[in-house]
């Protein structure tokens, strides 16, 4: 159970990084990646996964 970022579409804006309640998203080699060990899909914290809700590019933060 985790989300992932489709890096080819990501604009590297960083919005998902600071919205993620679990610090699961970070910049690695200039690309944003989700650490599946930390990602909870926002279960129990928010109604919707925060990264997907804030991301400006459709279908970029998606279930892994």
């Amino acid at each position, binding site marked *: 159970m985790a989300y992932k970022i489709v890096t080819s579409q990501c*604009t*590297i*804006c960083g*919005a998902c990084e*600071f919205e993620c309640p679990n610090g699961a998203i970070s910049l690695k080699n200039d690309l944003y990646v989700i650490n599946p060990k930390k990602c909870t899909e926002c279960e129990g914290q*928010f109604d919707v996964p925060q990264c997907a*809700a*804030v991301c*400006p590019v459709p279908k970029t933060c998606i279930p892994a």
Partner: protein
Amino acid sequence: MGGQLIGLQTLAASGTETMRAALSAGGCSSSQCGSSDKPDSMSAEIWEKIKDHPCYSEEAHHYFARMHVAVAPACNIQCNYCNRKYDCANESRPGVVSEKLTPEQARRKVIAVANEVPQLSVLGIAGPGDACYDWKKTRETFSRIADEIPDIKLCLSTNGLALPDHVDEIATMNIDHVTITINMIDPQVGLEIYPWIFYKNRRWTGPDASKILHERQMLGLEMLTTRGILTKINSVMIPGVNDTHLAEVNRVVKEKGAFLHNIMPLISDPAHGTHYGLTGQRGPTHAELQALQAKLEDGTKLMRHCRQCRADAVGLLGEDRGQEFTLTQVPEVVSYDPSRRADYRALVSEMRGEHEAARRAVGETLADLETAPTCLVAVATKGGGRINQHFGHAKEFLVYEVSPHGVRFLSHRKTEQYCEGGWGDDASLDGVIAALNGVSAVLCGKIGDCPKESLAAAGIVATDEYALEWIEEGIGCWYKQISQSQQTRRSA
């Protein structure tokens, strides 16, 4: 470039004497008075705040430069005129990508620029992204730089959604200028502009999105007004969507204390990949934009001298020296040297007195012409308030309206540069002629015979006879001359 046309660029490597020479056009300056006259209708306190801000004062934009740093790339809304692969289209030109910096990199860059460009007076954060949403980065950048350059003016631009959360800090940090982009006050209109916003941990769409955004914008504006922070409103004019609605926006933002209202044209191009670009929504024509600006003139003061510029632009007027200051060109360790900026400021306050006196004098002499028709005149300038740019180097012209009532700045007109290093080809000269549609004369620092003839064939007088004069003075002289010669012709 002609030898006598000393550009302000040369200030970079020079001392006060060269600065003086450049600003006073080679002559010695006879500085009639040291202080510059503020417009009569403005309080001294406000004039003090805006007099060195090129985006807030038409006069300052001849002398002072602003720079932007792109430190806050995240955004909390989506505008239909924005493709987020590029810069925030609200303050920048759409379709360009700016160098993204960390706050520390931004500090180094700003200090490097301040050491090289004495005209620098304002540091703006205007995207890509929203400066208030990515607030931590914005705050850190401003505070690092204000620590080292205490007299730099801080300016930020926002869509307003996160603004109310930070107004108190904005006030304590001495951020004097805030721009909010407000395109509508009616959620039904907003439907066509904003597909979604991200607020309180969820995405909102439809009329809810625009309603929340609108309420937050109004709240932010009121909070800023209460704290005495000068707020500029930018509106993007989108024909068929909000063009007629903007009069209402103007009325409301004025009521709520906005200091300036700036109408910007939608720039829409399929190549930018924006919703509007892809769906064929067109931007307004020059004429439509000017008609709307004229209609709103009695509302809150309208800013005509603003252009959308690159978010990492560095410079004065149409010039952009951003490419000279990319991160790789900035040294690892920089320390701020305040002397050149201080010298430049002292000099400008002297020059401004002269400039203002010249303006007033021109106004008085034109009044005699009574019946002369109103004309548009384009000027090529690289700053300092003078006619001092080579026709072929002008990336844009400043268009003024002249009539017996005086000389008044109207707008900027961008051209595709006619002369890229060598002598331009006719195709691009056609572009310049098209950009000068409706203009009677072009006054510039220098112009060759060929372009002069082509312009004459298009009915535009081009001359370098007024080179190095104050802009208003040059226009006034030209106008007097043609009006008088027309009168003699008529009476003969």
